[in-house]
């Protein structure tokens, strides 16, 4: 049952990519398909990152510890979409024109921030294995707190790229800030917030995904 659910979530994470490929091959990406693929891969990565960040607060408030089992997969999918987004920009949009690429990274704050956030996600992806979680112990959680920095960096990257319509990036930004603040709700307060009808609380998880 759990395995089926995991496969389901895995396939769901592939939906944005499948839709993008379908639109690409069907010629439905409009007049500037390159920009459209950049926007959609970046958007998918950002949304998945926000969902990943929501897992732990959701788990704490509901007591549904099984939610934690999806966090790594969602985070890695977010990283995967951001990789596609980066490679799309590097290889398709700029066509590896290193002269311009380096200048853009240094000179354009929105590209600087986007690139830095992408770099920041690399060590997080590398240390996402269960073995690394065990090896790093306490420091793993400290390291992975950086995902908030990466998410906010990605949102700033989005804000600085648009001309006037800030609705979408602002929405993501508010959600991430709210999720970050929920992290500071003390453990003792959680018991009061949880619905009384839930099953007795499971012992604090010692699984690697905690």
């Amino acid at each position, binding site marked *: 049952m759990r395995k089926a659910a995991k496969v389901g979530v895995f396939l769901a994470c592939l939906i944005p990519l499948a839709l993008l490929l379908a639109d690409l091959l069907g010629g439905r990406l409009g007049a500037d398909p*390159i920009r459209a693929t950049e926007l959609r891969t970046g958007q998918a990565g950002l949304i998945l990152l926000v969902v990943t960040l929501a897992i732990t607060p959701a788990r704490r408030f509901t007591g549904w510890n099984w939610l934690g089992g999806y966090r790594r997969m969602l985070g890695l999918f977010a990283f995967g979409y951001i990789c596609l987004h980066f490679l799309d920009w590097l290889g398709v949009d700029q066509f590896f024109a290193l002269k311009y690429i380096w200048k853009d990274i240094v000179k354009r704050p929105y590209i600087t921030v986007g690139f830095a956030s992408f770099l920041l996600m690399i060590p997080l992806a590398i240390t996402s294995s269960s073995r690394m979680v065990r090896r790093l112990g306490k420091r793993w959680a400290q390291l992975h707190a950086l995902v908030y920095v990466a998410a906010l960096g990605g949102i700033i990257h989005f804000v600085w790229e648009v001309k*006037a319509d800030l609705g979408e990036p602002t929405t993501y930004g508010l959600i991430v800030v709210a999720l970050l603040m929920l992290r500071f709700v003390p453990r003792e307060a959680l018991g009061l917030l949880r619905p009384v009808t839930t099953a007795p609380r499971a012992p604090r998880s010692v699984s690697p995904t905690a």
Partner: protein
Amino acid sequence: MLIRRAPDVKPSEITPEPVYLDRRAFCAAASAAALGLAVPAALRARAPGRATDDDKPTSYENITHYNNYYEFGTGKEDPSDNAGAFRTRPWKVEVAGEIAKPGHYDLDDLLHGQTVEERVYRHRCVEGWSMVIPWSGFPLRNLINRFQPTSRARFVEFTTVYDPSQMPGQRGGVLPWPYVEGLRLDEALHPLTLVVTGLYGRALPNQNGAPLRIHVPWKYGFKSAKALVRIRFAADQPANTWNVVAPNEYGFYANVNPTVDHPRWSQARERRIGEFFRRPTLMFNGYGDQVASLYAGMDLRRNF
């Protein structure tokens, strides 16, 4: 109305109707290019950075479905989705300010006696993309001369229609409405500055600024106001919307200039819609021979 073709536009420069009707094939080609499948062919066709003289008109489909017209929404396809029912008749244009003959003119009255010609213009958006557009229209100077500006007139202000009931984008506050733009009088009188009434030999589609817009081909696209309801002649430099919103990013002049970057992105190159590689942006969008003298002695870095 006499429709005359400008002598510098060859019929061969205009996309034949069958080609743009066959847009699915174009889209497939564009998709293939985006996938990288067509890279070798594209490389043969045009090495990046090579000086270019191939200004093939952009397809009708792309010109009419990739628009920045925030009155109808901020998405590139919002104008084509939302402008279909926009009413362009009856239409009146107020001509005001420092002129001998102010008044409210009916559109047909404004167009009466004007000789419409076809002009293929490069169009460069401040966002870094460009198109080649076969407009039909007539030089703005022909209209201006009719109104006889006074000696005090040094600038012209253009106002886009304000009608939130028909323009969903105006129900939100993305920009202050109505949209206003302006030109120096000598820029407005320049023979390249066009009053646009048509596209690809047909009536101007609503999403492209019907019934009446201007196009100033050596300036970034936002200078070319759409759906004009007011033309005002002034002694002082008028405000222009994007400059009001972000004065450090969008100037009054907004001449296409590859050496003066937007504070947030480079203006050195552009993506021609329908092409794979970015191409170098040309000074004054390639119209320097005709317009550079307008700015002789001006610091274009300061007057961006």
